[in-house]
């Protein structure tokens, strides 16, 4: 470690008590070390002299007045508004990103996965009554596609329907047997 660094360590208070005593003794003995210390001290004092720390008092009284006005008008520091804006933006962005990368699954029941028991467990009575009250024809009068559309609440691809029509007929029959429809 060179002398300059030792002096800076001394000024910073980084020296241990022993080190400090030894260094102070060295300062007394070495003119070179002492003059370097004085040089650094001088430079530091020069920097301290740059501190004006004075300003027109009217500025400060005006600033106090402005502050009191801000308090009275409820104008809060801008950073708080920004902070909330950032949080809200992040939440919105999160939902958008989550929606893009993990879209909510369609509630439409696929024909392949259609489970009669499950469907009627989750369907409330209102829906059943609705069918009976609103459909005047006998259940048999409706095509399989129409029945499926009623259950799903949406239209079904005809091609898809024909492929599993026989399976669906079985399902409808089982529903009819249970006297639900």
């Amino acid at each position, binding site marked *: 470690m060179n002398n300059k660094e030792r002096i800076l*360590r001394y000024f*910073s*208070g980084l020296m241990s008590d022993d080190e400090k005593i030894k260094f102070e003794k060295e300062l007394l003995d070495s003119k070179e070390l002492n003059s370097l210390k004085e040089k650094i001290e001088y430079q530091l004092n020069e920097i301290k002299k740059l501190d*004006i*720390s004075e*300003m027109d008092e009217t500025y*400060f009284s005006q*600033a*106090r007045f*402005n502050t009191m006005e801000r308090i009275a008008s409820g104008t809060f520091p801008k950073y708080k508004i920004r902070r909330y804006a950032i949080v809200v933006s992040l939440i919105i962005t999160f939902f958008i990103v989550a929606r893009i990368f993990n879209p909510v699954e369609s509630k439409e029941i696929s024909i392949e996965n259609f489970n009669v028991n499950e469907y009627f467990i989750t369907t409330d009575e209102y829906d059943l009554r609705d069918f009976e009250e609103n459909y005047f024809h006998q259940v048999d009068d409706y095509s399989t596609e129409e029945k499926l559309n009623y259950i799903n609440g949406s239209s079904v691809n005809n091609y898809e329907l024909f492929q599993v029509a026989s399976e669906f007929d079985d399902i409808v029959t089982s529903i009819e047997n249970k006297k639900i429809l």
Partner: protein
Amino acid sequence: MDIDDKELIDEFISGNKAAFNKIAAKYQNRIYWHARKMVGNHEDADEIMQEVLIVLYKKLPTFNFSSSLFTWIYTIVSRRSINLINRRRIKNFFSISNDEVEVKTNYDLIKNVEDKEKLEKLDKILQSLPVKQREVFIMRNFDELSYEEISKITGKSIGGLKANYFHALKKIMEKFENE
């Protein structure tokens, strides 16, 4: 706790708004100049000073006297200054142009030409230091605080502060030598 401070706070809490004005007048100069040296320009320092006074106004009734008012105020100023510097850094990072976000400098508030030059020089020196080193350098040399006081304000260890101060001194001395 400074007796005057306690009396003023008690008066303010009991509804005397003029007491707050006295507290503000007492600490305003130090708040401004600490912020001014940290951020390096008048506009930001002015904003910080007003924000600190608003915080004081709002939080003084809940001040529990566990530390001195002076330490508490310095803690607020120190945090606000560092927050502002960090915000400015983020702005610069996201800035589209390559130029840094313009930092307004208004030396016109200081009438004396010599003082203006001094302040410009000081800004140049202080702004060349990293924030942590700058903070401890300002508190040691201009606010004349002990390491213990700085530690209470910043919440950092005394050893860490000494190390920061050492590096600040080293950088400044190197700068002097190169000029």
